[in-house]
């Protein structure tokens, strides 16, 4: 069966972008976070270079706080497709017991995600890092380029971005500088789900609804697994995750969608954004500030 026309256009554009990265950079890497966007991006990379294998490694910036199902899914998929996976953790911060409840969300994210990412990029001397961020996710991401320049400290300067015309991307950088590349720039959450459905892409089972034990923290339903000492406010509800991050900072949504058709239906009629369940984004301007420091 052929894809819907708009999904075919998006696929063509993403494949074009992925091939540009390989043509223009010495040492590119693709960020792989195990989530649905990563699953789509990985599938697009397979298609882009078929019949060859994906010509760059995958990088998982692991905070140690991901869901068990995510680690299992990751290891199984990587061995199945024979990809080269690099796992990087900020071991120093993990040893110190970095946790959002102890140090605050901003500090925790800064150490386990941003710093870990910047370290991994510089240790491996990656000059291009492909990420699955979409412009529809968040207001500062709407300003992103497809090839987004980063200085030698990994910083983004949104006020002085290179103009980007047609699909003619500027890949020129000096030593030590890098580029973040966003092949899913033009996709929306609903496009991602429709593509997963039409292309039958495997995703982590956490996206499908089932009865889960959750802890109510204000507006959020946080998985019980993330804090087993918790005794109060425990609810067992049919729920799923719209967006996956670290356990302590990822909220579930009440839902009965236990198959892909159900998820697509929910995504197509969603009235609240998926980032709402991600505690890391809360607080004013938090994504823009994090991005300036080097976050995706």
């Amino acid at each position: 069966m052929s894809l819907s026309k708009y999904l075919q256009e998006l696929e063509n554009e993403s494949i074009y972008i992925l091939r540009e990265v390989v043509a223009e950079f010495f040492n590119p890497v693709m960020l792989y976070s195990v989530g649905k966007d990563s699953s789509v991006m990985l599938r697009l990379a397979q298609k882009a270079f078929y019949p060859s294998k994906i010509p760059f490694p995958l990088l998982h910036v692991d905070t140690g706080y991901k869901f068990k199902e995510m680690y299992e899914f990751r290891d199984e998929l990587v061995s199945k497709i024979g990809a080269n996976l690099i796992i990087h953790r900020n071991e120093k911060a993990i040893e110190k017991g970095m946790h959002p409840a102890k140090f605050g969300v901003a500090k925790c994210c800064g150490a386990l995600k941003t710093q870990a990412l910047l370290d991994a990029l510089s240790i491996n001397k990656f000059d291009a890092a492909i990420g699955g961020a979409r412009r529809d996710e968040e207001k500062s991401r709407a300003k992103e380029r497809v090839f987004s320049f980063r200085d030698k400290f990994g910083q983004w300067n949104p006020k002085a971005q290179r103009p980007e015309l047609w699909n003619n991307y500027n890949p020129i950088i000096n030593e030590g500088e890098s580029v973040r590349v966003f092949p899913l720039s033009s996709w929306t959450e609903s496009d991602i789900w429709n593509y997963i459905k039409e292309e039958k892409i495997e995703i982590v089972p956490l996206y499908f609804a089932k009865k889960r034990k959750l802890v109510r923290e204000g507006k959020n339903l946080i998985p019980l697994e993330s804090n087993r000492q918790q005794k109060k406010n425990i609810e067992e509800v049919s729920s799923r995750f719209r967006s996956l991050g670290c356990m302590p900072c990822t909220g579930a949504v009440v839902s009965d969608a236990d198959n892909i058709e159900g998820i697509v239906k929910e995504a197509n009629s969603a009235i609240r954004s998926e980032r709402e369940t991600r505690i890391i984004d809360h607080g004013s301007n938090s994504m823009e500030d994090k991005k300036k420091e080097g976050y995706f």
Partner: protein
Amino acid sequence: MDILRFATAGSVDDGKSTLIGRLLYDSKGVFLDQIEALQGSSTSSENGINLALFTDGLKAEREQGITIDVAYRYFSTNIRKFIIADTPGHFQYTRNMFTGASNSDLTIILIDARKGVLEQSKRHFYISWLLGIRNIIVAVNKMDLIEFNQEQFNFIKKDFLSITKNTKVDKINFIPISALNGDNVVSKSKNMPWYKSKTLIELLETAHIDEDNTELSVSRFPVQLVNRIDNDKVNDFRGFMGTLNGKSLKKGQQVLIYPSKFPAKIKDIIFKESSVDLISNSDSATIVLDEDIDISRGDIISNLTNINISNIFKSRICWMDEEPLDKGKKYLLKHSHKAIKCIFKNIISKVDMKNLDHIDLAENININDIGIVEIEVFDNICFDSYKINKETGSFIIIDLESNNTVAAGIII
């Protein structure tokens, strides 16, 4: 369902951000939690939500109430997916408009009903026209502030048409709206019964998308990468990866490789991990040829139509950098997967953006200038005019000191 990409252009305070906010809000392209986040920070609107805030993504923009550069917005109806290139009106508008229009099929030009056609409206039209956009919607906004006066609307329409007389734009739609109150944006206005035509969203849903170059006879498949698998002599694989621009290519078809002009036949086409008989405009595919020809990135697999091969060509450029064009300096030309050094041999003329006349013997080209130049490249390139093929007819110029993209050009 397909995709319509459009740019929005307007002068300061024409209500462009409000219009985009309205489109997103009424078509549910913005989420409730995003609205709630705004309600805390918004002050100035009747219904409690400042629609304009949807589009101001950066802290500096919200603080200063300006839009810094192009932002992209997405929404869909049951008929189409829309990608909006939101280009700011007052801050380096030429460069931003040029950028936004480069990837658009349609432009919405906003006009404040009280002010009528401004010089800037003409420039927005001119830039859209230069970049090959033939679908223009002129939205006359703030009709509520002129008591929905039909005569004023008709006057603006006539005035606008007088500037576009000499261009070959087939389709200019005029529509009276109030972005703030939603009149004729998504729902028909009760205040303007005299306007019987489509609402803005209906115009967007039904606009004919120019399938770029498919009507024309050229097929250009610039090679992006060579896919090579060396197993053994029998099973060696060599495919050429790229995206087709223009007319379909078929298995078995005779093609020419530019610039070498070697002939070959398409032995196989791989698209989405399987062998197919045909690919169409904008498909990203891998082509296998029957001949063993030396082909690398930047070479073009083409049907039997001619292409220009030269190291000198004439072009219209838009200058985008604070530092003006330097005639003695070597720049990097990035054109259809080739990056070669070049110099500006001649500045032929530049456009006076006040009246859109060409000024001959222009001395220099500065930021936001549009000019006609002659470029000399250090090696031959294969190109078409922009009118024939957008991909092989456009380029960017990179300054090798700053590494910035300093200009964009279309080949005449």
